[in-house]
């Protein structure tokens, strides 16, 4: 995973609430066994509508998705963040995210940025007026800044995840530092705990 620190990019506004992962990447794409190449399937059904905002050439190359509340609800498919990542997105900005989608995104360094719904709406309107508007996401400072429209807001992230993302660390390696604790826990498990084999 590449380290996430600070970046400045243009954004595309997807003004819909409760966007589910079946829309982000339809299930047909889930038969693939590769880890890359899902960008072509991103919102593939909605993209059949020429007026869909992700078809608008003014937003080509945007690396931030401005989205409605509860983004990424539904299925646990990590293919959804993979598709967004593969299509060039580095952060999703919304007033809330579905829990599993948020976890999956944080695993791969796609940053879910939670800010107040009114500010998300204001940013959507600003980006609709000026698709070239640049937004800065600063993970280190935990701030989202859009100088031109005088937005400078904090966003929350736990200290551990922030450290892992800014250093680009392997999550599994971090857990394996607690090997002794894991083994100790295993020796204390109940005798009747079911075993598969």
């Amino acid at each position, binding site marked *: 995973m590449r380290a996430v620190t600070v970046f400045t990019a243009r954004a595309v506004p997807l003004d*819909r*609430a*409760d966007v*589910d992962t*079946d*829309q982000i990447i*339809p*299930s*047909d794409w*889930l*038969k*693939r*066994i*590769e*880890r890359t190449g899902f960008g072509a399937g991103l919102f593939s*059904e909605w993209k059949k509508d020429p007026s869909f905002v992700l078809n608008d050439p003014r937003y080509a190359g945007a690396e931030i998705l401005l989205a*409605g*509340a*509860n983004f990424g*609800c*539904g*299925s*646990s*498919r*990590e*293919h959804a*963040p993979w598709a967004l990542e593969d299509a060039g997105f580095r952060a999703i900005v919304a007033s*809330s995210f*579905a*829990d*599993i989608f948020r*976890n*999956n995104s944080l*695993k*791969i360094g796609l940053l879910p940025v939670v800010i107040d719904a009114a500010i998300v709406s204001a940013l959507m309107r600003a980006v609709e007026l000026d698709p070239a508007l640049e937004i800065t996401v600063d993970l280190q400072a935990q701030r989202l800044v859009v100088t031109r429209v005088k937005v400078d807001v904090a966003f929350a992230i*736990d*200290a*551990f*995840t922030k450290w892992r993302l800014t250093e680009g660390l*392997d*999550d*599994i390696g*971090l*857990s*394996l530092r*607690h090997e002794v*604790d*894991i083994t100790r*826990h*295993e020796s204390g*498990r*109940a*005798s*009747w*705990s*079911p*075993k*598969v*084999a």
Partner: protein
Amino acid sequence: MTATLSRKVWDRHVVHRAAGEPDLLYVDLHLIHEVTTPQAFDGLRLAGRKVRRRDLTLATMDHNTPTLDIDKPNPDQIATRQLEALVRNCKEFGIRLYPLGHANQGIVHVIGPQLGLSQPGMTIVCGDSHTSTHGALGALAFGIGTSEVEHVLATQTLPQVRPQTMAITVDGDLPDGVTAKDVILAIIARIGVSGGAGSIIEYRGSTIRGLSMEGRLTVCNMSIEAGARAGMIAPDETTYAYLEGRPHAPKGADWQRALDDWRSLATDPGATFDREVTLNASDLRPYVTWGTNPAQSSTIDGLVPDPASFSDAPRRESALRALRYQDLKPGTLIRDIAVDTVFIGSCTNGRLDDLRAAAAVLRGRTVKAGMRALVVPGSAEVRERAEAEGLDRVFIAAGFEWRYAGCSMCLGMNPDVLAPGERCASTSNRNFEGRQGTGGRTHLVSPGVAAATAVLGHFAEPKDLTS
């Protein structure tokens, strides 16, 4: 010090805890399937890692398997490649696999409880959001992504931030014809698709206590449709009676020791929840979803709503989009909506009790001419036991197709899909756009409503059928 059920189970599994960090949780059972694992195994190979606890990991095939001609070569080569990857990975890493054709094969959330592997007080994860199902037995069970699958394979742990707690209490007797499916659809209608976000729901109250284990599995299954991290029900005599004698349930002296332990799991009197919601069961009716998320529903006696009636702008927009997609007009009676496909199955309603409920409605009746109707049992064992009771013959005589076990038309990864514009009464869990096939229209219902709808050709409850 008092504690809730979920907090007790959580705390028992904390391997490492430090300020400013997520808890490192031990995983007692890891269920895997073909769709969300190939990249996880690739990750293990790349890093030179092994599976830490093969004995706590079980694989099956369910999501993209065919439900017809399962002994013949699968014409879907991409699906075949994925199924073969699971076989190869399980062999290489030493994981037990119940493949298509095996007596224990089935939807991952049906076989866990059925084998007695899902038990009270355990932590259970799977790369599938409906893992919340297993919470019906008093386990803490939640869906994870593929990076987390790899993490559990390598470490048998997961770093997790402890969710909040939410109590949903349902009291009273269920009216005739109202099922566990209607209870959970009513709950989701009440709290919304993100109403449980960031929380573990504990379902409580006399209605929940009165549900069979299969009904409880249906309720917990759809916790994720309210956005919850997990759903749980405290174990009780219903749970123990369900588990006793199952292949992986504790035996002999261990059974007694397990019971003593499980009885300590219930939420202590006086323990508090971050949020509480209560529903009265006697108010409930059979539910039918009209929209494209599981909260957009009405009772069967109701109408398709007018989006203008929603005061909240995002909900209004969402209802407008949903009615356009579903091709429905505001004010239409739910019973007046014609249906051309009926699907009975899935991890929500693909268990033996569900099939019995549908068959009871269909016995001596036939589906409406032109109706496509499918029964897909949740597991090979459900299929076998249903056949032993003669349910297959009831379904076939009524005009249903009797299929092999799998996820099937719940998510449309195998050939069982809706054509664009087809309208389906489905016992599954998601009515998202295109969920059952591109352009398909899904309405979520209980098995009884699905069966009655198949007979009349429009939404109906069993009571609507004349003898």
